[in-house]
């Protein structure tokens, strides 16, 4: 069987989760590899969520929020946006490929965009292959 990536999605409930629902009501088909977790705001995404996801076997993590300027909480998405480069640097330092963690803006009317983002990300991660974070952690544990 070919490699099927597992992607964890953190979606803000005002824009992106609504957008993902719209993809559903519009019956826009996309890859089944994403597993969505609903949050109030993308600013709630704690770096540990991403670390935990990767450690637990996710091959990719997608964070979606409202477009800049549209945040239900005025500027939560800007906070996410500013936090992200640092997080990415950290992940890079651990040898985690850049494309595994992605931040995207999806509005409530962008069902198609959500589907496109998921499809694109799935295919990119498929090319990257499975994440080795989990297996490494397990071998580390075993060695210890």
């Amino acid at each position, binding site marked *: 069987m070919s490699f099927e990536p597992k992607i964890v999605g953190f979606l803000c409930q005002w824009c992106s989760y609504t957008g993902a629902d719209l993809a559903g009501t519009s019956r826009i088909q996309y890859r089944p590899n994403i597993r969505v977790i609903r949050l109030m705001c993308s600013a709630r995404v704690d770096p540990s969520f991403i670390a935990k996801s990767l450690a637990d076997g996710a091959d990719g993590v997608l964070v979606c929020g409202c477009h800049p300027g*549209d945040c*239900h909480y005025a500027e939560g998405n800007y906070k996410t946006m500013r936090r992200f480069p640092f997080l990415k640097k950290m992940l890079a330092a651990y040898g985690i490929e850049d494309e595994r963690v992605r931040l995207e803006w999806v509005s*409530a*009317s962008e*069902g198609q965009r959500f589907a496109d983002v998921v499809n694109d990300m799935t295919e990119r991660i498929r090319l990257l292959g499975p994440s080795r974070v989990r297996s490494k952690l397990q071998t580390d544990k075993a060695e210890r």
Partner: protein
Amino acid sequence: MRTAVYFCQVEQGGAINVEAVAKYASNLPWVAAVDVLGIRPKLESSVLAGQIKASEIERIVIAGDSPGFFKPVFTRAMATAGKNTNEVRLASFRAHGARRQDALERAKAIVACATRAVPFPLAAVPDNTPVHPATLIIGGGIAGIQAALEIADAGKPVYLVERTGTIGGHMAMFDKTFPTLDCAACILTPKMVSVGQHDMIGLFTNSQLEELTGSPGAYKAKIRKRARRVDIKSCVSCGICTDHCPVVVPSEFDSCITTRKAIYIPFPQAVPNTYLVDAENCTYVQSGGKKCGACLKKCPKECINLNEKDEVIEVEIGNIILATGYDVLDAQKIARYGYGKYPNVLTALEFERLTNASGPTGGKIVTKTEKYDKRTKTQEWVFDPAGESPRAVAIVHCVGSRDSNYNSYCSRVCCMYSLKFAHLVKEKLHDTTCYEFYIDMRAFGKGYEEFAERIKQEGTFVVRGRSATVVESNGRLVVRGEDIIKDTLVEFPVDMVLLAVGLIPDRGTEEICRMLGVERDSDGWFSELDYNGNPTDTERGGIYVAGVCQGPKDIPDTVAQASAVAAGVLRSITSGKGLGHRSSLSLSEIEARANNLQTS
């Protein structure tokens, strides 16, 4: 105080019999002189000053439809005569609601107040009436939604009546909103959902007000709930019915650039989020149950009842809010723009849907392509996601607005949404040329001017001059206009023309006026009680106006007004004191009140 009353009119055809009012004024004991000066009289301040001095006038009242237009010359005369210039008072018939022929008594009352130096709105306060706590809101657009939530959140019951199958109004159709470009759905749908789930809001979609009886504070409204023919409670919006419905009609929500079925949901995020049957196009309903019925057979939840009948319910209410919104001008009326003749001449709302991510092309901006329609067996121009992108787009402002041949007023939102269109085109198609034909760039709101500047910097060509004609030449559209700043005539070949059509009152406005006794202004919008002081109340007690139905407005102003209306409603409910019709006051009552106010 010795007072002189002068009657002056700005225009021919004032409704009030000025002579009769003048006669009334001359009988007031402190009025020393009355003069009917007629229409646009040629007034000399020195002559007036002479009269003032001679008859020892201490106060002047100028009466008429718009007496303010003559105030400076009288003030000047008072100054020349060495009198107190503060004692020039206005008795404005128009401002205080003496607009119709039957308003003679009102006009007298206005003069009565002015001669006593009492502001008319202070004296003409109708008696308080007890108020029923429920409120009826007509129109489920952003104004109605906002007002409903304001009132319901205060714990007061609201009935929201909406003509179409869903609330949301025009705002739900928009892609992005100027000047912040945030997505309309993101900010509107949460509010719609709140309305749908609110305990205090009785939502009647697909319904209309049928009759209003009662008096301020205690109205009774008959609401016709047109048969939805789908049970709201049990429908799970699975969409199977739509898949099997054979009837295809243009989708109103998509400005008719796409189609829907006879059983349909207006749009995926509709509230209530269920399907409904368009009885006028349903084969089953039209054939009296003899034909079709495909949806009935296929519905897995059996929640379709095509034989459902309209229901008329009666509710008791204390206040009514009109939030009926607008329609857009039919662009076909202006033949020279070729709308309806050339497929790629679009109206603003059509473009909103085209560029919307949930629109027919997923937000891709394309020109129409000709396709063979198997159903109608004709060639039709449709939007196809695979269609060609326009290389050049012209956006024409003031289509039917600021034009005495159509709407003489400014529609207030077109400049900004046209700029937004240019931005959307430029954002999605970098190499596409955009032309904006405008007369005055009305970027007046918070952040609007900055937005306009930004659009210009993005490379959109703004042409000061209203484009006059659109013709087809060599397969492209040619837009002709005068570029006034560059002082030349221009003819731009483009692939798409967007018409910034103006706003007109909703088609149901007239009927509502008839039912509620609310007045309309000459352009057809609802008349407010007092342009400056009371922009949300009407002459009728307990009836308020909010949003565009009172005159074109953008979203922030509409929302502010909708909330403001809620203040009036909540004030009357919480204090238990509502206001009666202003017309319920007699002349003698107003005179008596003015006397009291004058002495106090």
